[in-house]
């Protein structure tokens, strides 16, 4: 898969049998819809297929950050904020292909998760906890 920011090849990191695509240049990560489904269903959440759909329901964030293109379909993605008011802004593919986290966003997200007490059994929280788990540093 090609990194939507650097246009270079990404490599894949598999952890707890779930995969992420990771760019070693910008440290961004692509979370594929199918993999998210596996993560959420392993965690016991029912409708894993709805994950990207749920994220897409969040309002579009107003920002000057450049639009990112989905590495699967090449179309512009939607910028949304997950993890509440002080959350991080990520990119979600309108075609439900997956979510993109910029390098800095992964770091911010880890801070937020550390401040929270544990992981809730809920889509956003589960995704963020998994990312923290993978990139614990």
């Amino acid at each position, binding site marked *: 898969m090609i990194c939507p920011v650097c246009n270079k090849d990404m*490599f*894949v*990191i*598999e*952890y707890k049998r779930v995969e992420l695509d990771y760019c070693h240049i910008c440290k961004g990560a692509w979370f594929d819809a*199918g993999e998210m489904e596996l993560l959420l269903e*392993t965690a016991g959440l029912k409708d894993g*297929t709805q994950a990207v759909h749920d994220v897409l329901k969040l309002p579009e964030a107003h920002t000057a950050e450049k639009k990112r293109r989905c590495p699967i379909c090449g179309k512009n993605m939607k910028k949304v904020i997950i993890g509440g008011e002080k959350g991080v802004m990520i990119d979600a593919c309108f075609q*439900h292909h997956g979510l993109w986290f910029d390098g800095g966003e992964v770091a911010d997200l880890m801070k937020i998760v550390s401040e929270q007490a544990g992981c809730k059994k809920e889509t956003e929280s589960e995704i963020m906890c998994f990312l923290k788990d993978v990139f614990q540093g």
Partner: protein
Amino acid sequence: MGALLVFIGWFIGLVFAANGIAGLVIALIIWGIMTLVAYFQGDNILLSVAGAKKISPSDHQQLYDVVEEMKIASGLEKMPDIYIIDDPSLNAFATGRDPNHAAVSITSGLLQKLNRDELQGVIGHEISHIKHRDVLLMSMCSVLLGTIVILSFYASRMMMFGAIFGGGGGGGRRGSSKNSGGGGGAAIIILVLAILLMILAPLFAQLIYFAISRKREYLADASSALYTRYPAGLASALEKLEQSTTPVKNATQATAPMYIVNPFRNKLNVNNLTSTHPPLEERIRILRSMAGGAAYANYDQAYRQVKNTNSGIISPQSAAAAGTVGLRAAVAGGPVEPPVDDKVSRTRDVNDMMYRMNDYKTIECECGAKLKVPPSMQGSMIKCPRCGRAHQA
């Protein structure tokens, strides 16, 4: 549909060359060339447009086994080639001009999502397309359709030019010809008819094409039930396809009828007259209401019941020839595993196969993460994003 092509050719000839036969010959020559190309190269073109990769038995043993089972059940002589398309969307299709040059293709997404019974149902459906030479029929139909569309398109353009430069359009030219039997009135009538036909012909052709395609889909579903003796497998696969919302990456209008479900199903709500595939829910309902057996006769009965009509979809002769076949029970899926685990292993297996085929290298880091590195990055140092250990890729 052939008759439509002949009509169009004749009218073009009549309008432009005052000679119906000349137009006819042109139409037939164009159609002949396109048919030859489609016949000998069609499957290769289609497979490369879809980005399919051929796999061997060792790449995915289960898929190979299922195809072999269905090949035996259908009575095909030659084992079809198996192709994988690296695409997260869910779809499958069959190609090949005859059963000896056939291939089945399946997207990696579909391979991940289906269990063995469902996979068997889908492969049974595709094998039926091969067995009944549907692919040849469908590609010949699409070539014929293509020729009609091309001819009408260019003919209408030429008439516009004729109208601008010839100062009277086709009719004017035709009038100048000595052969024209009637007066100006007849010429105008023919011109109007020709224009009408040129506008309507592609529409008609498309409708006929769609009707043929849909009938073939029902037959393939019925055959899949017959070969697998387990209609619930295909029904459950179709349910998974129905839920999926990812559109197929490389599908075009022309290749649409080849897929197991319409690849454009989410773009717009196509109405029933112009869709290449019957509505999914209807196909599922028919398969689900098959009772008492897996034979064509049982499918036909279920079809009548669901559609609430007296006319069946399968001819009585072929239904009788297939005889009676009992249903089988669901396969106990090997070792008893919770379904989620099963799904995770299936996904990992299929993905790892795709990585092997694309020459990825796998590094197992001590921290428990696995790094899968594409060929372009091999040879350089790679830091594990989890624990920071450096690895030589």
